[in-house]
């Protein structure tokens, strides 16, 4: 069986990639996609620990299910907001939506 740290490294790398996407992309939908990547990275860690910890009770997998449900809710609301933004500003680039800035 391969060591648990392999999975943790994979999770860390995915998290970093997602973070880079959130910080650099201009398109709001691309930012949402990067957030989903970060959530996936978290889930990889949850499930890896749930598999490797002795006396584990699958709680990690239950949490992963909750994370997936929250991700679905986040995507639905996030995309509704994006559509609303597009209707009002005719752009989905987050740095052009600066009405509330001064």
């Amino acid at each position, binding site marked *: 069986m391969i060591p648990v740290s392999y999975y943790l490294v994979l999770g860390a790398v995915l998290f970093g990639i997602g973070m880079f*996407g959130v910080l650099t992309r*201009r398109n709001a*939908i*691309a930012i949402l996609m990067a957030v989903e990547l970060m959530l996936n990275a978290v889930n990889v860690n949850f499930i890896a620990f749930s598999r490797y910890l002795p006396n584990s*009770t699958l709680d990690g997998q*239950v949490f992963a299910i909750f994370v997936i449900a929250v991700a679905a809710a986040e995507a639905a609301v996030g*995309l509704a907001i994006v559509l609303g933004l597009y209707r009002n500003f005719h752009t989905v680039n987050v740095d052009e939506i600066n009405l509330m800035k001064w």
Partner: protein
Amino acid sequence: MQAVFFFVVAAFTVATALLVVTRPNIVHSAVALIFSFCGVAGIYVLLDAEFLGAVQVLIYVGGITILLLFAIMLTTRIATRVDVFNEQMGLSALIAGGITAILVYASLTGIQIAGEAPAPVETTPALGRLLMTTHVLPFELISILLLAAMVGAIILARREKE
């Protein structure tokens, strides 16, 4: 054998994830995202979490990414590639790279698990039992959250009638 599978799937997942954040065309990003999610599902299966693997494909690939594509098609034209990255590219790369480096270092050195991993069990019935006993309160809360998100999304996305 398991290690070989892990490295192939992990490399695939990371490569497609990189494509997601770097492709200028957002539909290409979304397609790469599909593959990345499938790769993560493969990792779950390697971890003996086949229920989570199936759910991952069903929800992320079959639901969330479709929604994303839908929103993309309603808001962008084909081949839109004007300035996809903002000006904080260098700084962001530094921050994300730094955090990744710290996390990788921590996962390689800081994690010591005492004891052997348990033998794999059939997870689906066990998960169902856990959701209905130990975790029933968070489970109900999640249902309410999903309902609220659904109502909220409909209210936000529909056009106001004059």
